[in-house]
């Protein structure tokens, strides 16, 4: 009996992924044909809370409001337009095959499953590939100015892990343009009264009554007031937890609080150890740094990655002769070259830097060189394609990429793990849905470039609006608990106590200090490469530091007006608890797959070595009352359409 079966037998929660019948290509259509519907006049009788106004949240809220539901939308940002989705640079995939280079829904589906190292749910991924096509249409109709060719048709570029050009982009600001598109559609509904927007309001707890999600508790960041909101369904589109590493490419405010509070209320947290380290970020320049900046992966279309062969190299990059350069990606992965997937490129860079071949003042980077591209395409074309990225680099690094090659190094970027959801994107708590980066659904152990925007929008535009209706239909006419229900009062009270407690500790160290230390531990032991003893070490260090956090934290100011230190304290608290789960998950998964690389499990060439026999499953964790004692539940993964194979990009 395999480990998967063993663990499955021990599940503490019944995990029903609700995958529809039929061949993978027909599942979504079958679902839509058989789902229950809510009559247009009845939709207005249902209230849906959408937390998060990123791509997933804004598109879901807008579409649900258009359908006629009452929608209350929450964001801790000052405006729906600020969500972290705005930072996405490179592009969004769509299986349009406009380039006629042999792309198809199946190929996008296949690439994504393979890219995810066979740790994602086939049915979800195929649905994603199917609707990717509609997303592009929808966004163009909204006036998203995607890049075009002189003929006036849409342009595409290729992205890591794919051999076709299927990525649509708007300069280096694709995420911004997509989010603004969704934001405008969302704003139209706010103007119409279809959506009530609560900005600068942070979800701090979820209320579950009789096993069903009945509403949320939020803290008004401006007044510190804590209030409850009830609804028939709650959607969490609250983004990823990459900031657990402290230093990451995520926006400063990104946090796990919403997902984590749901987890503590019984929602399972799946694959927390699947985190993505992006290969092309600007290396850390000094220790006071609080944020790393991504240089879009699209740069790898024309940039060549190399390091000097001699570790003691002292010359300027341009003075180093060809034969003393190691274009290691082209050497190791001839067929994908500089476009090898992220996890692979990242580890390759780490190895060389660890060997001392790193470049830059701290010897903590590798070169991304455009001189060849500038010769081939000319300065203008390169500027046309990457101009604004080059400017951004120059502002930050103070070097001009047209002359000296960029210096890049991997950094935490995306989190594949998240709340466990079934095919309907519903968590194991009825009425609680998770969309976008906040759920674990589609990317398995590694996400391919330009597919997160795609997933966020597919969840919000084309999946939730159907599946939520299917869930609400049976509730018609049933009365739901309101915010006067004792459970709400209790949750509010608990939240108040939690925040007052942070203020009361009155220790000596700021939340930032703890976040930084926490991040170091997770980066060192649960980062690009993980080992058994490393993770065990982390699982000793973390509780100790968490203890210190609880006793030596200092939060100044008070709880009844804008207090960013207090906000931060709450978020760091949740990061601590999540951090322990990440390490525990990484420790238990005794294989290497995608973003999760255990040094003990690798091929002779140092590639990830999967163990499909024992680990071809989703690890979904249940809150066990203490961050160190979670209960493991597994969902076995079956592959019908794609055959389990070792991932090779050679």
């Amino acid at each position, binding site marked *: 009996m395999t480990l998967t079966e063993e663990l499955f037998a021990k599940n503490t929660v019944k995990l029903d992924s609700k995958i529809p019948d039929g061949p993978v290509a027909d599942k979504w259509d079958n679902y839509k044909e058989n789902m229950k519907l809510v009559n247009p006049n009845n939709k207005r009788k249902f209230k849906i809370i959408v937390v998060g106004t990123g791509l997933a949240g804004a598109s879901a809220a807008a579409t649900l409001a258009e359908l006629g539901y009452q929608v209350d939308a929450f964001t801790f940002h000052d405006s729906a*337009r600020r969500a972290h989705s705005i930072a996405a640079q490179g592009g969004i995939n769509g299986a349009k095959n406009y380039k006629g280079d042999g792309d198809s829904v199946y190929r996008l589906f296949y690439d994504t499953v393979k890219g995810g190292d066979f740790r994602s749910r086939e049915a979800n991924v195929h649905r994603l590939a199917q609707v990717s096509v509609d997303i592009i249409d929808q966004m163009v*109709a909204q006036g998203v100015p995607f890049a075009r060719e002189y003929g*006036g048709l849409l342009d595409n570029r290729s992205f890591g892990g794919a051999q076709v050009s299927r990525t649509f982009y708007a300069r280096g600001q694709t995420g911004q343009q997509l989010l603004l598109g969704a934001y405008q*559609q969302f*704003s139209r509904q706010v*103007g119409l009264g279809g959506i009530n*927007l609560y*900005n600068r309001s942070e979800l701090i707890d979820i209320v579950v009554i009789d096993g069903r999600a009945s509403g949320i508790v939020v803290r008004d960041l*401006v007044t510190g007031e804590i209030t409850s909101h009830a609804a028939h369904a709650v959607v969490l589109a609250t983004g990823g937890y990459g900031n657990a590493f402290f230093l990451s490419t995520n*926006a400063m405010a990104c946090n796990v609080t919403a997902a984590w509070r749901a987890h503590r209320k019984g929602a399972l947290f799946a694959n927390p150890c699947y985190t993505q380290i992006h290969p092309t970020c600007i290396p850390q320049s000094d220790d006071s740094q609080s944020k790393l900046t991504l240089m879009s992966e699209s740069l790898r279309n024309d940039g060549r990655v190399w390091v000097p062969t001699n570790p003691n190299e002292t010359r300027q990059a341009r003075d180093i002769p060809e034969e003393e350069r190691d274009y290691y990606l082209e050497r190791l992965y001839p067929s994908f070259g500089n476009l090898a997937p992220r996890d692979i490129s990242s580890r390759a860079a780490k190895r060389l830097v660890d060997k001392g071949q790193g470049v830059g003042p701290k010897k903590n980077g590798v070169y991304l060189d455009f001189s060849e591209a500038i010769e081939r395409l000319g300065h203008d074309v390169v500027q046309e394609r990457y101009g604004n990225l080059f400017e951004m680099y120059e502002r930050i690094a103070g070097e001009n990429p047209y002359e000296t090659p960029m210096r890049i190094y991997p950094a935490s970027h995306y989190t594949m793990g998240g709340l466990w959801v079934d095919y309907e994107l519903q968590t194991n708590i009825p009425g609680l849905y998770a969309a976008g980066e906040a759920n674990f659904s589609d990317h398995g152990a590694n996400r391919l470039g330009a597919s997160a925007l795609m997933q966020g929008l597919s969840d919000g535009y084309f999946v939730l609006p159907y599946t939520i209706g299917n869930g609400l239909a049976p509730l018609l006419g049933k009365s739901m608990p309101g915010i006067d229900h004792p459970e709400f009062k209790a949750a509010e009270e608990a939240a108040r106590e939690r925040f007052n407690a942070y203020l009361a500790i009155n220790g000596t160290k700021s939340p930032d200090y703890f976040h930084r230390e926490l991040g170091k531990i997770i980066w060192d032991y649960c980062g690009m490469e993980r080992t058994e003893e490393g993770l065990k070490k982390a699982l000793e260090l973390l509780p100790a530091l968490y203890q210190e956090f609880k006793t030596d934290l200092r939060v100044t100011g008070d709880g009844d007006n804008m207090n960013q230190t207090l906000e931060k304290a709450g978020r760091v608290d949740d990061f601590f608890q999540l951090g322990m789960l990440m390490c525990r998950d990484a420790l238990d998964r005794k294989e290497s797959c995608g973003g999760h690389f255990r040094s003990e499990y690798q091929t002779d060439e140092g590639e990830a070595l999967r163990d499909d026999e024992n680990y071809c499953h989703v690890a979904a964790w249940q809150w066990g009352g203490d961050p160190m004692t979670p209960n493991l539940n597994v969902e076995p993964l079956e592959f019908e359409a794609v055959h389990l194979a070792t991932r090779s990009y050679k």
Partner: protein
Amino acid sequence: MSNHLKNITLRIWRQAGPAAKGKFETHVVDEITDEASFLEMLDILNDKLVTEGKEAVVFDHDCREGICGTCSLMIDGQAHGPQRGTATCQLHMRQFKSNDTITIEPWRASAFPIIKDLMVDRSAFDRIIESGGYITSETGGAPDANLIPISKIVSDAAMDSAACIGCGACVAACPNGAANLFTGAKIAHLSRLPQGQAERYSRVEAMVETMDEKFGSCTNHGECEAACPKEISIDVIALMNKDFRKAKFANRKDLARK
């Protein structure tokens, strides 16, 4: 490579709340690397303040990549500080010298009430967008993306104004507290595109009227363009004025028809 700035004096606006009376507070940063960003300098200051038991300076920020438009500081009398086409978060200490005195204020406009210290409420921008800053295309009904070819020049021009990050620097910099650059940018983006034609004239009228309720008027000072981190040209303002004129005629015709 990296060298260090010494003895930077910061004059920072502190204000307990919207109604409270504010004042400048002086802090000294003894040493900081010029690799650090302006906001990282404030992070360091705040960390110090908190450990000393003082309240941290409240300021808005998020992406730190110059794209979300959250950061918003008036630095030495310039919105987003001295570097052209650069948001506060992208400003690095390279732009300053040892012994500099740097004055930091919040955006000031009646449409942007101060929440606390350097943080203001820019919801007024959302109201403008809600009043018409969109193309109505409800989910599901969209035709194939390549159905309407759009000249590269047109779509590039649309992209130029779509690049607006909604930071509010234009309003902050404008001697009249006018939002014409922000509004003009959105109108220019949408009305340049074929998809945007159907609502072109209702959009411009609605947005201009909403803008009028909250902001000042444009007398073509051109400060907004200089402050704009995306260097959006005041051409969009002229374009908005032109569309507004056309709308006045076009819409009246339509009203007369029905």
